[in-house]
């Protein structure tokens, strides 16, 4: 049953580099063994520390020379100016200056504040709505079909709210949430103990990076997330990690099955 787990497996598991089936098997061994679990937790904590230390650099204003060098192959190469007539050079640098000024402005606006990662957004969104007793969702589960249709339309791709009834979580409903570039969707589930978990889905236009399962703890909310075909999925909740992981696996498998089923709209 249990598989041998090497140091490389442990690293790859924590870094979300393993394919889902292998990740599940390694997870079972690692999370079930206190020594392994402690090492995994230490690596995870260190990864988070590294990101906390290095992420603020991303929001620093960029020097003009770098933006110039990124926007043109010629105007900022060293020494080129010397070959231009002085008058032309002045005119050119004026134009470039204006262009750069504009770009810098855009960039500074874009970069203001620390960027929010996908997993963090999922956790914050969960924390915000899961605690809302009266209006956790916009459309309730009794109108599930309408909910899924509406969110699919707003996100411009076919969404699914996988059933989690067999693990004791019933769909509460869902809502539209603000995303990075495009909106995201939140499906909320609840069990008999009134514990809530939510599935957050967001698709960004550009090259999102595919990942295996990753785990993050954001402000006390556990998040298992993965990115598949430019689409990020995150399952958030205050459950213990192994429980959340097993549900995340279920969600992953059911979404994959729904995606490939012929009844797909």
């Amino acid at each position: 049953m249990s598989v041998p787990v090497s140091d490389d497996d442990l690293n790859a598991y924590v870094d979300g580099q393993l394919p889902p089936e292998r990740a599940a098997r390694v997870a079972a061994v690692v999370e079930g063994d206190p020594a392994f679990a402690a090492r995994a937790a230490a690596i995870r904590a260190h990864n988070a520390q590294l990101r906390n230390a290095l992420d603020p650099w991303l929001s620093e204003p960029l020097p003009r020379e770098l933006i110039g060098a990124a926007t043109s192959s010629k105007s900022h190469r060293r020494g080129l100016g010397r070959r231009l007539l002085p008058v032309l050079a002045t005119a050119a640098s004026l134009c470039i200056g204006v262009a750069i000024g504009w770009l810098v402005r855009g960039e500074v606006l874009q970069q203001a504040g620390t960027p929010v990662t996908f997993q963090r957004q999922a956790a914050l969104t969960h924390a915000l709505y899961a605690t809302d007793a009266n209006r956790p969702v916009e459309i309730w589960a009794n109108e599930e079909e309408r909910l899924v249709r509406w969110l699919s339309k707003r996100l411009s791709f076919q969404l699914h709210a996988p059933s989690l009834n067999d693990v004791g979580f019933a769909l509460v409903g869902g809502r539209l949430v603000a995303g990075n570039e495009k909106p995201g969707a939140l499906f909320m589930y609840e069990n008999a103990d009134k514990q809530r978990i939510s599935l957050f889905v967001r698709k960004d236009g550009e090259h999102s990076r595919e990942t295996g399962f990753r785990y993050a703890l954001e402000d006390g909310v556990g998040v298992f997330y993965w990115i598949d075909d430019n689409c990020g999925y995150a399952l958030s909740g205050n459950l213990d990690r192994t429980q959340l992981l097993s549900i995340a696996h279920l969600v992953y498998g059911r979404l994959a099955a729904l995606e490939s089923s012929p009844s797909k709209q």
Partner: protein
Amino acid sequence: MSPTLPNPDLVAALPRLRRYARVLTGDVNRADDLVQDTLARAWEKRSLWQAGSDLRAWLFTIMHNVHVNQYAIRKRRQAESSLDGDEETPGGWQIAVRATQSDRVELAEVLVQIGRLPVEQREVLILAAVEELRYEEIARVQGVPIGTVMSRLNRAREKLRRMSADVQAPLKVVK
């Protein structure tokens, strides 16, 4: 027409390029020079970039190579100019002091610790843990087999673990 790099993407990649350059050089000013040289090289080699592929990983690869070459040149010069050329990192790691805009001590400590790692281990660690590149992509960036990437990562984490243990150890003795 030769292929062109998508400008907005290059600008969007700048903050990460800069961060990677700081991790490589350990020096904020030298990092920006490295970014500039990397961008110049990227424009020169733009016909080699495959549209639609990951621009960031491609730029990291160029930056890695530019840095390796510059590092070799600096090291040679240093060896020529000093009789006892035994300094290990030319220029050295100067990031920690400047980057502690937050008052959180453990973050400053993290920066000091990664500064003590050999550059190739530090590189793998940051690309895996912070940039979240796939191990295969990191192997391509460094031009080494994936097994080398994994053993570098393992050694980096092992060293960091021991450094943290060393930090905590004296406390136990005092008690």
